[in-house]
Structure formats: C-alpha cells, structure tokens
C-alpha cells in the first residue's frame, strides 16, 4: 500500500482532485488519533477529547494541502507537527484556559518578572504573594489552576536568537529522552536551559528534574517529596514560570 499512497500523492499533485484528497485524509487520519491522544495528556478535564480530534483533522487537511512531495521529507513528520500545531492554535483561539485563570496568571507572571529583576534571583512564594497583594493560599490556588503539565501550556516559543522556532516544551522534553551519553553534543539552547535550571530553588530543580528527566508523574513526584499532587503541580508551575522569566532575559 506504500506504492498506492505514492500514487495517490502523484494523482493529487496533478489535479488537486477532491476525491483523491479525501482518500489521503482517510489514509493519514490515524496520525490525528496519535497526536490528539498525546496532546490531551495533562489537560484540564473540561477540554473535550473529541474537540482535539476535530482540530487535529483540520491540521491534517492543511498539511496535505501544503505538503510538497518529492522534496525528500517524510509526510508523517510534517503532518504530526502541523496536527499538533493546529490543535494548540485552536485551543488558544477558544480560550481553553478559563479567562479568570488567564488574567490571574498574567499578574503572577508580571510579578515574577518584576521581582526577578529586583532581587536578581527567583522570588519565593511568600515574596510573590506579597508583591501581588494576595494571601499565600490564593497564590497557590492560582498556581495549581495554571496547570502547566500539558504540551499546550508549555508550547510557548522561546526566542533564543538562533532563528528556528524552539518551544519550551520541546527543549525540556529533549532533556528527557536523550540518553546520558547523548548530552555531549548539546545545542546552545540546551546548555542555556541547563545553566538556568541550576539557578532555580532546590525543590524546583527536583520537581523539573523528576518530571522532565525521569519521566515521572506529578503523583510519583509527590510520593518522593512527601507532599500532595496539587502542591507538586504548584511547584511545577512556579518553576516553569521562573524558567521562562529567566530564559526571556
């Protein structure tokens, strides 16, 4: 069927026939199942899985439209990136993070940046709460709601100056899958990320290390540190914010 798929692409390149396009979409639709299944991980409960699949299919249609066969790239690689991008873009446009959380999270990020430049280090939660004029509980509740465990939440583009689009999530996850020996040929971004990680508090380093390097769940990290999952969620969110603030300098 590999041959038949190549034939379909050939026919589609010739006439852009709708019937051929439909068969290409049906052939590659399982890629959407794979991507939507993984993007859904860590998402808040109110995000409907079937919506992610629908957004993903639009991304697939877009990928088929734009793909140039014969240039030596694998369609699957191009399609997976476009499907994931389409799901995240669509989530942003429908405001998947509730507005109340979004406004509060902006205040937290602004206060973080303010204190970071004033103190020349990451603020503690108490300092952050005081700057915001909130109680510590209010801050922790907001951090917990900002749940940054999903790919969509971390798909923030990091402008590290070397031109291509690097997201925080790609960079952090690159650290997970690479085997210890492979880290020798780190890119500049990875080196920067490692150097920045060591400037976080010990507890934040532990949470990020166990989550991205060791692939543990928040529940497992809670077990190691002897605290609740929602506390780990808060520490993880603050650590990612702090990392983002430092990398943005």
């Amino acid at each position, binding site marked *: *069927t590999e041959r038949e798929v190549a034939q379909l692409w050939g026919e589609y390149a010739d006439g852009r026939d709708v019937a051929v396009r439909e068969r290409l*979409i049906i052939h590659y639709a399982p890629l959407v199942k794979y991507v939507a299944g993984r993007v859904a991980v*860590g998402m808040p409960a109110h995000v409907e899985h079937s919506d992610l699949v629908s957004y993903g299919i639009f991304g697939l249609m877009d990928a088929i439209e734009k793909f140039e066969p014969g240039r030596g790239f694998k369609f699957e690689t191009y399609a997976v*990136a476009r499907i994931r991008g389409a799901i995240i873009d669509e989530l942003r446009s429908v405001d998947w993070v509730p507005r109340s959380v979004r406004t509060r999270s902006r205040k937290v990020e602004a206060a973080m940046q303010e204190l970071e430049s004033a103190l020349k280090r990451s603020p503690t939660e108490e300092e952050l709460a005081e700057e915001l004029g909130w109680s510590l509980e209010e801050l922790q509740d907001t951090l917990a709601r900002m749940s940054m465990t999903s790919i969509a939440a971390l798909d923030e583009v990091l402008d590290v100056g070397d031109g291509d689009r690097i997201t925080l999530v790609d960079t952090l996850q690159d650290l997970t899958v690479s085997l210890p020996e492979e880290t020798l040929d780190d890119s500049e971004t990875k080196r920067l990320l490692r150097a920045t990680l060591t400037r976080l508090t010990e507890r934040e*380093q532990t949470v990020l290390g166990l989550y991205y390097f060791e692939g543990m769940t928040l529940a*497992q990290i809670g077990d190691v540190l002897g605290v609740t999952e929602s506390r780990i*969620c808060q520490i993880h969110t603050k650590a990612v914010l702090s990392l983002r603030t430092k990398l943005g300098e």
Partner: protein
Amino acid sequence: TDDLRRIRSECEAAEEGISYARRLLQGRLDILRAALDQSEHPDAGQLLAALPAIMADQGHVSDPAQARSLRVRVPADAERYAAVIDAVITEDEVPEGTDSDLSDLERVVGVLTQVEHELSARRRALFARIDGLRAELLARYKDGRADVRDLL
C-alpha cells in the same frame, strides 16, 4: 543508578515506537470497521464526516496528576513497524462495494486485530519493565541514593 536510567531510556525509546505504531494501527482498524459497517454503499465522503468520532478515544479520562512528560513526534524506528503492517494490507482500504472486496476487508480486519493485540501485549510488557525500573529509581530518590543534581 546511571545504568538504571540508561536501561529505562532504552525501554522508553522502544515503547515510543510501539505506542506510535499501535495508535496508528488502532486508527486504521477503526476506519476499516466503520467501512465494513457501511457495507451496502460505502462512501468515502460519509467516512470522512465520521472521522472525528472514529479517531476519538472512547471514555477518555485525563487526570493531570497522572500526566507525564511526553514527546509528540514520529519516533525514530517508526518505519520498522509500518513495513510489518503494510505487508498485511495488500489492497485498497476503501472498498468499492462488491462482495469479493468485502470478505477480503473482513480478512484484513481480522488479521490487523491480531497484530494490534500483539503490539498491545508487547507494549504492556514494556510498561511493566519501565514502571519497575522507575519504581526502583523512585525508591532511590526517596532515600537519597539518587539525586537530580547528577542529571543537570
């Protein structure tokens, strides 16, 4: 501990390939089953409209506390599995509607269901191994034999 991490990373690289192939195969299987259900007048347009429902997971539960950091990409050894699955599907998936095609479609669905079960079994075995290694690592983090510092 470094050895433990290395073995776990190797198992995870294998699992990433198997999970990718398994999800693609499940998607393919569910499309063929939907085509079989439409046996009188199978119609690509109708199948297309039903794709979101066919591709979605039934009973999807997402618990942020059980979330783990995941890569979303085509794994390095994806081609290997694709070849196995391609060998099974010998002709066009969207049936033209004659009887001989239909029985052939049923044969393909039967064989693919078997391949999917085998992939899922291998995936479960990998999970058992990965989770066992991770439980050992977790215990070492708790009693201080392992430290995040040696990773950074």
